[in-house]
């Protein structure tokens, strides 16, 4: 009777403390960075009082405006293109009889996830340098949009495909039985059911594009500063809490989009 039946069989000693330590390790540095964005002193290390002034000076800064505009142009375009491509690809790879080359196509879609970012970065740089040198082609900021689209596609693809695989096929069959044309069945049945997956995928594509530093830094031409590049330029100067303010804005955007994507996925699971 006194034997260990009374204890939770799932429990392992010390695991709770390690989990809590992990959370603290992950959050404390970022929280400190956020708190110092409110520091009224001009040093990033000594606390002097609370102010929102650094957000003001960041938001009024013209360089920041340019960087924010570039970032939005690139990530919104990359998100739209990659989400459309990923949606079509997910349908073309789930609502079909297995075709020869399906496995290879799946690998190609996921390739950007397997290649280390720095390799993608130098490869894309070499590619654009080559077409600029040979054909005189330079798409300007389009270079960055295309580079971002490539690595956004697999991120958008994953939740859309998962949604398509979870979906109840009987509804689509019922529509077909009731003489819906394939296009009508898609438009009236599949697409509405797919919307949460598409939104979740678009949110992820937006975050990875919005946050990208490595590929953008190597591929960006003069004047194509994005927000992460702007932060990098600021690090190399004497720092003020303005950099904390901009970093905090970036983090909040990430948190917003992750939470949106997460909540949509959760609702689907219920």
């Amino acid at each position, binding site marked *: 009777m006194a034997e260990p039946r009374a204890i939770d069989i799932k429990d392992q000693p010390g695991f709770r403390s390690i989990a809590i330590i992990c959370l603290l390790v992950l959050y404390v540095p970022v929280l400190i960075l956020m708190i110092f964005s409110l520091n009224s002193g001009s040093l990033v290390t000594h606390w002097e009082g609370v102010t929102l002034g650094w957000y003001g000076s960041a938001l009024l800064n013209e360089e920041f405006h340019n960087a924010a505009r570039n970032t939005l142009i690139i990530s919104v375009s990359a998100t739209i293109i990659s989400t459309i491509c990923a949606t079509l690809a997910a349908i073309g790879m789930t609502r079909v009889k297995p075709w020869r080359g399906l496995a290879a196509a799946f690998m190609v879609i996921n390739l950007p996830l397997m290649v280390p970012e*720095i390799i993608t970065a130098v490869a894309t740089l070499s590619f654009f340098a080559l077409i600029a040198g040979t054909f005189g082609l330079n798409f300007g900021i389009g270079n960055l949009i295309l580079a971002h689209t490539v690595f956004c596609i697999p991120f958008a693809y994953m939740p859309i495909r998962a949604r398509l695989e979870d979906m109840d096929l009987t509804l689509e069959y019922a529509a077909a039985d009731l003489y819906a044309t394939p296009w009508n069945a898609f438009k009236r049945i599949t697409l509405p059911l797919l919307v949460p997956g598409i939104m979740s995928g678009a949110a992820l594509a937006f975050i990875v594009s919005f946050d990208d530093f490595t590929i953008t830094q190597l591929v960006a031409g003069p004047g194509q500063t994005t927000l992460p590049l702007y932060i990098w330029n600021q690090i190399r100067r004497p720092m003020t809490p303005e950099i904390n303010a901009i970093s905090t804005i970036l983090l909040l955007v990430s948190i917003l989009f992750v939470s949106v994507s997460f909540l949509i996925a959760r609702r689907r699971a219920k």
Partner: protein
Amino acid sequence: MTTATLSPATLSKAAFFEAQAVKAGARRNRLLSLPALIIIGIFGVLPLLIICVYSFLVAAPYGGVQWQFSTDAYLNFLFQRDIFDDTLQFTPDFLIIYLRSFLFAVVTTVICLLLGFPTAYFMATRPPAQRNWWVLLITIPFWSNLLVRTLAIMFIIRDEGLINNALLALGVIDKPITMLYTNFAIQLGLLYAFLPFMVLPLYSSLEKLDFRLIEAAYDLYATRRQVLWRVIIPLSKPGIIAGCLLVFIPALGAYVTPLILGGGVHLMIGDLIAQQFGSGRNWPLGCAQALILMAAVLVALFFYVRNTSGKVQHG
């Protein structure tokens, strides 16, 4: 008439035509994957082939390449040509950076596993409502800006950072300990960056754990430690392998972390490659270095595929 249309032969004919129509539709559907495949093919795969070609060319003086075949990029990886007598001399500088990066990546993977496994297990054993919160809390850093997160570490370990200030105030030390721009800083940054990459795959594997097996083990007089090592860990092997891979590959090719926390003094492979395209102005060498890194990644992926497919065969 009606009986004729409903005869088995007609029905099977109808079924046949329907199947044909579905097949035709399905064949058309597969074309839908073309836009994605074309974009990744042109702007993702083709660039990789271009750097393969570039690695066998000669560097142009101001960056870029000259179209002239040469294996110098690969030779330069291990040797340096003597300026006076044109002999090749073994220079292990690049090799050392590769080994250092490998070591960093291994240590990162091991420590992330040691911290991540208990965390993931703890998450998986929470009640469902709590579990969602934990997953969200780990997911947020997973997707947060790596540059900003690395910056957060930099603020803490600087000479005037929080750690040194606290230690100075407590009188433990009388002058700041230099942590920034050291190997320690890079290692810490890598751990911080990739910990969520370990926890999430481990969690999704542990979440599916059948706890009746643990109960059975206890019924058979297993101790807590035996349950952990002989039941839980073997059952979560796919998650462990996936997590290790998700940490090891990006850690090996890390660029941002050593750039900011190593201060350009302590290089990793990623910075070395980027340098050849920047101040180094030796694109072929950079391409060769990138391909050698790619080869290392492919070896890691190969082990992954072999391990996981072996798993399937055993049932």
